[in-house]
């Protein structure tokens, strides 16, 4: 599936996207723009960062491609990414992930689900991860949808844990999925796919 080795760029493929670890050279105006975009950052519960390319490159360099990955999402045949997924391998076979689609033309196009499916298969099947979890602002409804659609369970509500860009406090939700749950869901999806193919004669 991938020839990744510790310290090397992670490269994965989905049906519609190429995924590869970003490097400091990827700190383009487009990438920096996502960190400074109020709409993108507010959906995550943050203020725009007011970064420049040097600060963005510094951020990218923090990812070592050993336990920390910052992976760009590139539509096939395109040179610029539309977003990224960050992966943090933790102790006890846990992984924390977060994903940002910075290019708004791709919002609502199931990019998150497609990308995470491939990344989660890699984490559970190749990396020996036992549990994947993520944190989300309780007013980030699209992100909550994506967790639910991929079988995650809401494991906890941290009450009024964060403060939004407008100063109001909001709950922080913890979503998690275990390896067995993920693999059962993937098998069920494959069964459904085969059934549909049989029914349509494809």
């Amino acid at each position, binding site marked *: 599936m991938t020839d990744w080795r510790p310290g090397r760029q992670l490269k994965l493929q989905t049906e519609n996207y190429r995924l590869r670890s970003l490097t400091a050279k990827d700190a383009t105006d487009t990438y920096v723009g996502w960190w400074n975009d109020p709409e993108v950052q507010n959906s995550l519960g943050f203020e725009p960062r007011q970064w420049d390319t040097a600060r963005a490159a510094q951020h990218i360099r923090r990812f070592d491609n050993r336990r920390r990955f910052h992976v760009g999402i590139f539509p096939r045949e395109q040179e610029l990414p539309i977003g990224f997924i960050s992966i943090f391998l933790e102790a006890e076979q846990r992984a924390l992930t977060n994903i940002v689609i910075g290019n708004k033309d791709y*919002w*609502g196009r199931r990019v998150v689900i497609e990308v995470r499916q491939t990344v989660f298969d890699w984490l559970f099947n190749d990396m020996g991860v036992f549990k994947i979890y993520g944190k989300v602002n309780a007013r980030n*409804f*699209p*992100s*909550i949808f*994506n967790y639910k659609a991929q079988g995650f369970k809401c494991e906890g509500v941290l009450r009024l844990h964060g403060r939004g860009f407008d100063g109001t406090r909001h709950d922080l*939700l913890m979503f998690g999925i275990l390896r067995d749950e993920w693999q059962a869901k993937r098998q069920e999806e494959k069964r459904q796919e085969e059934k549909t193919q049989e029914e349509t004669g494809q």
Partner: protein
Amino acid sequence: MTETASLQHGIHWQTARQLLASALQVEPPQLDAEAAIGRTERWDSLAHMRLVLVLEEHLGRTLTTEEMLALESLADIAAFLDGAP
């Protein structure tokens, strides 16, 4: 009678259907009684955001986190409206 069938006799079933149809940008008859996340193709991330916002507009208040988390199907929406203050 199944739980979903029972909810279809609730006073808010049609309202729930209209609100969900509005969020999914379809006509209410296009939604079957079993409409749910993962089952209904039009129910994507942006539709889910619209759903919460139309429910908040309908009720004139912000949904609590627990209420919002419970919305996974048309039946959930109807049950929520049946019990909503």
